[in-house]
């Protein structure tokens, strides 16, 4: 177990280094960083001085090492457009994105798993067919369209929920702000999290359904029936646990992509999160922000994958033996 975790950790580090290299080359080679920072009238001498003080004349490996050293301390330099440290910008935005992603993931799981179980066990019922039809919409409609549709329905026509922003937020500690504690914050969360989570929900539902259909045909479920166990025990104790392994894989990956792809939802709902920041950075060629976003997203993906791998171990005893 420990050896396995260590090996995975080393692999994760290698991935992070590779991503850091891409981010670094973006920073270093897409345009001249000095040109981005100074005005047109700056003299060549002061440009050189800046270049020297930024360490841009050092050998590349030294620069890369410095870049990584800084990145570990979450120092990605200064944003070109805001003239503020990138770290501060992100610190302000991260809570918004994480809260949104967390809520949509929760929504996807809480709605998707029971629907999937139901649809898997009652294949012929009209409710399962309804679930499947709805899920088809969730899979085929693009996120921004669903968002606009929801805004039109609930904000414009019915005027129940706000169409943009986070509502009122409460500060916790020095840098975390939360919308969970105010009514307007919670109301503002509903539409974006449904928009963001709908696709994941349908995916989880369809996956659980397919796995359920597969598992209830297996011999051990037949044997469990022949042992006289009740349906509830058979489905929840034996069948569900066996469907979870692929579900965890997909859910883990999807959680990563929820965070990464919050960009579109954040744009539609003007949600003050990292995605919106990233989009602005792309429009203004704000390389340090883009590099930081890249590294942060990669870090999230890698950590989620790591957690998923560990979860496998806890669920499936067969893996424990093979790897130990």
């Amino acid at each position, binding site marked *: 177990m420990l050896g396995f975790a260590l090996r995975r950790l080393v692999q994760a580090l290698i991935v992070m280094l590779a991503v850091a290299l891409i981010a670094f080359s973006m920073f270093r080679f897409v345009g001249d960083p000095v040109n981005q920072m100074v005005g047109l009238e700056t003299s060549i001498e002061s440009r050189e001085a800046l270049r020297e003080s930024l360490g841009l004349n050092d050998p590349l490996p030294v620069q890369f090492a410095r870049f990584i050293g800084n990145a570990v301390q979450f120092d990605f330099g200064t944003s070109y457009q805001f003239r503020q440290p990138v770290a501060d910008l992100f610190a302000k935005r991260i809570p918004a994105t994480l809260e949104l992603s967390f809520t949509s993931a929760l929504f996807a799981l809480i709605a998707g798993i029971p629907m999937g179980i139901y649809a898997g066990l009652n294949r012929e019922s009209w409710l399962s067919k309804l679930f499947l039809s709805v899920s088809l919409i969730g899979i085929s409609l693009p996120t921004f369209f669903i968002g606009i549709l929801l805004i039109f329905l609930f904000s414009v026509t019915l005027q129940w929920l706000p169409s943009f922003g986070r509502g009122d937020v409460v500060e916790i500690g020095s840098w975390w702000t939360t919308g969970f504690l105010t009514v307007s914050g919670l109301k503002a969360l509903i539409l974006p999290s449904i928009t963001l989570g709908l696709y994941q929900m349908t995916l989880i539902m369809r996956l659980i359904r397919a796995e359920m259909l597969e598992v209830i045909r297996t011999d*051990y479920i037949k044997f469990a029936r022949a042992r*006289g166990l009740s349906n509830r025990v058979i489905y929840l*104790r034996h069948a569900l*646990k066996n469907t979870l392994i692929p579900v965890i894989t997909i859910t883990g990956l999807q959680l990563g992509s929820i965070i990464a792809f919050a960009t579109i939802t954040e744009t539609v709902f003007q949600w003050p999160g990292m995605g919106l920041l990233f989009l602005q950075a792309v429009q203004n060629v704000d390389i340090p922000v883009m590099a930081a976003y890249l590294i942060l997203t990669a870090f999230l993906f890698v950590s989620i994958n790591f957690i998923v791998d560990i979860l496998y171990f806890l669920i499936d005893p067969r893996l424990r*033996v093979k790897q130990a």
Partner: protein
Amino acid sequence: MSVLSIDNLTVSFPGRKSTFTAVEGVSLTLEAGKILGVVGESGAGKSTVGNAVIGLLQEPGRIAAGEIRLDGERIDQMPEASLRKLRGKRIGMIFQDPLTSLDPLQTIEAQLVETIRVHLPLSPAQARQRALELLKAVGIPGAEERLSQYPHQFSGGMRQRVVIALALCAEPELIIADEPTTALDVSIQAQILELLRKLCRERSVAMMVITHDMGVIAELTDQVAVMYRGKLVEHGPTAQVLGHPSHAYTKSLISAVPRPDVRVERFPSVSYIEEAAAPSSTIDLSTHWLGKTRNFASAGGPLLSLSGLSMRFETKSSVFPSRRRYFDAVKSVSFDIMEGETFGLVGESGSGKSTIARLITGLYHPTGGSIRFAGQELTALKERSQILAMRRQMQMIFQDPFSSLNARMRVRSIVAEPIKFHRLASSNAEVQQIVGDLLDHVGLGAAAGDKFPHEFSGGQRQRISIARALATRPRFLVCDEPTSALDVSIQAQILNLLKDLQEELGLTMLFISHDLAVIRQMCNRVAVMRNGELCELADCERLFTSPEHPYTRQLLTLMPSMELLAASPQG
């Protein structure tokens, strides 16, 4: 009063267009402490009878007529809730495959305790105690430690014991065992049969054993019921039915069973199930395509010669050589196969016999030793053209006729592929002509080429595999358990076909099987393998009449005795 009585049972599966009747008018009775065998080939409806009794018919099957009584109480019309109380408590069930019958994610203890507590009013600690006693009763050593283990930590035979323990949880009056030993090795099979018999006598449980294996029937049962296409054709004491079968189907079924005690030149064909036609024309090798380039340069000596062949797999990889773990699947095996003979390779699972087949055909590269084919060292071949030429001369027939054919290709293309690949025919028209001939020759008829594999039965698919293997004009055929997935009457036909082809085309064959009876019918010489080593190599008849190695002797004694069976018409 009988524990189980089935009266005029009819089970039907209503379909969209028509209703399929899987079981029709079957009547059986079973007394406490007795074992009833239900025997038949696939599709005979024998498993459906068992499922109907325990109330687990597959959708949309239903009992259309008849009565099932357990201790006089009618159970076929019981509502699901009361039926569930019956399952496990009064009727236990044992399935075929112990590897898949247990939930892989739960410990043995969890599964036993859960079953015990559903049926008996015991506390968790008492249930655990009972679970321990059950494990001891089914002969699992070290029950205390094994209780907390997961199914994958048990071997196949041990898992089947756990399954039996689970079936015994609440002391049922009736146990239904559906092919309880089919997935097991012969030595494990003997142990499990022994255990079932013992439990049945000691606890005076009535047992219904569903199987296709005449050996199991002869070994285990007091009474036997023979089923054919949903109907009961014969029913009576085992000795009488097997020894003096009265129904024509039973007679032909028994005559198709390969006998370990006698060797027959040909299996009598079972007139009841004939799924292939005789070839419409014989092939004259001197003029036909199949005969071209048959005059291989005969180097004299053996055609295939293995010496010191070994194969080692890495089971645990590590950067440090000292921490790597290996498994030696084949340990320095040497034998020769003469031109034109059928060489048998027999052993239990894990003995390395299939690995040898893969080494010879080049699917694996050996760790050590040499393979010489027609005087040429195969392991030293480097050039692709040479390797291909060698491959063309050797072909393989696999065990599973369902997964060894590409389901998306027409049979014609499947058989034509090797001909085209090795460029053995000059024109497309010639290829089609050859494919037609081959299909006709394996008994399918040239018209079969337009169909897809799924339109054929298991035996017919195995014929397609044989046609495909012949399509490269091979000299040497490796048959890896070619009939172990087939019904006995189909097996007899396929074995006959292989014999005929060998005679006609002068093929040399390596015949791999776990079934000693089949080996005896097919082979000239036999090698017995165990744990990757060669135990004994002898002429087939000598091996069966005077085995030398203790393991061979053990294997021979473990074979279910067929003495009860009626003398084969040709025997």
